[in-house]
């Protein structure tokens, strides 16, 4: 049977998904944002390591600390979701396993990112009331 389809029509839809650029840019933008945030985070950890509960709550009551920690948390979870996605895509080739792990990666990042963000805001806004 003669095939009247053009080469373009046959190739259409078989290539890349077309949103790789978005992922690439997300990785770069989050990594640039994380450079200062992580350096701040290291010194925050140094300070918090010798803080008891009341000192930690007081530290988080400062708007600067609360906002920077919230940004560090949210952007870290975005960045690690992108990074782990690439690791899974590189090494896991069975379609169902890959899909399951990609979903797990997304859900773990969304769940713990939301839990951490809510916790930060709760402590910052309530002054440690529990």
């Amino acid at each position, binding site marked *: 049977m003669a095939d009247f389809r053009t080469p373009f029509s046959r190739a259409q839809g078989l290539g890349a998904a077309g949103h790789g650029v978005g992922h690439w840019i997300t990785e*770069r933008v989050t*990594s*640039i944002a*994380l*450079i200062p945030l*992580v*350096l701040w*985070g*290291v010194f925050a*950890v*140094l*300070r*918090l*390591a*010798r803080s008891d*509960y009341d000192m*930690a*709550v007081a530290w*988080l009551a400062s708007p600067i600390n609360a906002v920077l*920690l919230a940004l*560090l*948390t949210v952007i*870290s*979870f975005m960045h*690690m979701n992108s*990074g*782990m996605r690439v*690791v899974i895509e590189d090494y896991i080739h069975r379609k169902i396993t890959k899909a399951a792990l990609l979903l797990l990666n997304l859900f*773990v990042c969304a769940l*713990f*990112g939301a*839990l*951490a963000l*809510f*916790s*930060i805001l*709760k*402590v910052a806004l309530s002054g*440690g009331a*529990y």
Partner: protein
Amino acid sequence: MSDASKTIRVRPTSPHVQVWRWHLTALTSIAHRITGVGLYVGTLILAGWAISLAMGPEAYGAFMGVMGSVLGKLVMFALSLAVFFHLAKGVQHLIWDTGVGLKLQAANAGAVATVAFAIVATIVVWIIAAMTGAL
């Protein structure tokens, strides 16, 4: 189709990664990925800190107790090394994205710099931790 499709010719294969001499650039490249996966756990620990703080003094005390143990400190040491290495290697990747530093000599120098920065920054942070009583 003729018989030609049934005869499988053994095609020449490229040298496998296991018989390839380790270069510092290759080593730091895979280390970037390994530290990234390690920091996945590190960020979950950070989330655990915030969650325990929001749950009250008892949960916070339990969390800090675990992190203050010998095992906790070992994990924190590994995470600090991972943070600084991943940070430095990430910066090298950002520089590479601009098309700069991809020549062999520059790439090697960059790899040496990332390892050096990671080791020095980790030591400095733990010295500060010891001096300020954070240990």
